[in-house]
């Protein structure tokens, strides 16, 4: 079964600095998709970035980028120029041929002014 592991329950970053959130996954599939979702206190899960496993180029969305290491089954999220509004729970998620996503346990990010 596919599993998603986020080994950092909590992370902290100074405003304007850079932080990296870690995620590893286990799968025997060759074709799959990986996602990072943000969940603020409002509870609504918001898509931050996604990566197709067949693409070697790392996905980037403005201040958010990923480091996708397929052989190592690693998918980390880098947030540059951190802002107070980035404070939230961040979930890494995996999806392959099955339609539903499998999520990690999450990392709580605190941004210090």
């Amino acid at each position, binding site marked *: 079964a596919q599993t998603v592991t986020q080994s950092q329950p909590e992370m902290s970053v100074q405003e304007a600095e850079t932080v990296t959130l870690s995620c590893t996954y286990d799968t025997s599939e060759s074709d799959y998709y990986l996602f990072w979702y943000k969940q603020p206190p409002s509870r609504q899960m918001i*898509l931050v970035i996604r990566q197709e496993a067949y693409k070697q180029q790392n996905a980037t969305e403005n201040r958010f980028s990923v480091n996708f290491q397929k052989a190592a089954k690693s998918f980390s999220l880098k947030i540059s120029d951190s802002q107070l509004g980035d404070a939230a729970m961040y979930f890494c998620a995996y999806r392959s*041929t099955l339609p*539903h996503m499998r*999520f990690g346990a*999450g990392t709580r990010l605190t941004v210090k002014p």
Partner: protein
Amino acid sequence: GAGVSQTPSNKVTEKGKYVELRCDPISGHTALYWYRQSLGQGPEFLIYFQGTGAADDSGLPNDRFFAVRPEGSVSTLKIQRTERGDSAVYLCASSYSGGASGANVLTFGAGSRLTVL
């Protein structure tokens, strides 16, 4: 609608009672998903609908949990004989389609927080 709408936002009930949680997906989204998020955990899959039919209900924990989507739009998650362990946030998500296309992005609602006393 513009987003996925879930009602009620919060529900407090007593052990043994019956509850219904409603999800109104984005218009045109044929796939609908229910997840359960316990405190301090990531969302766990419960059930997936493609149209009106439950295509995958392997995540439902037991037969006290049931979900319907009679007209292929609004879905209701039903929990019978609630237990304290059912307390969680129940999230609904929708997408244009499910199936093998992993690129389909799920759009989530704000969830319904269920508290069983």
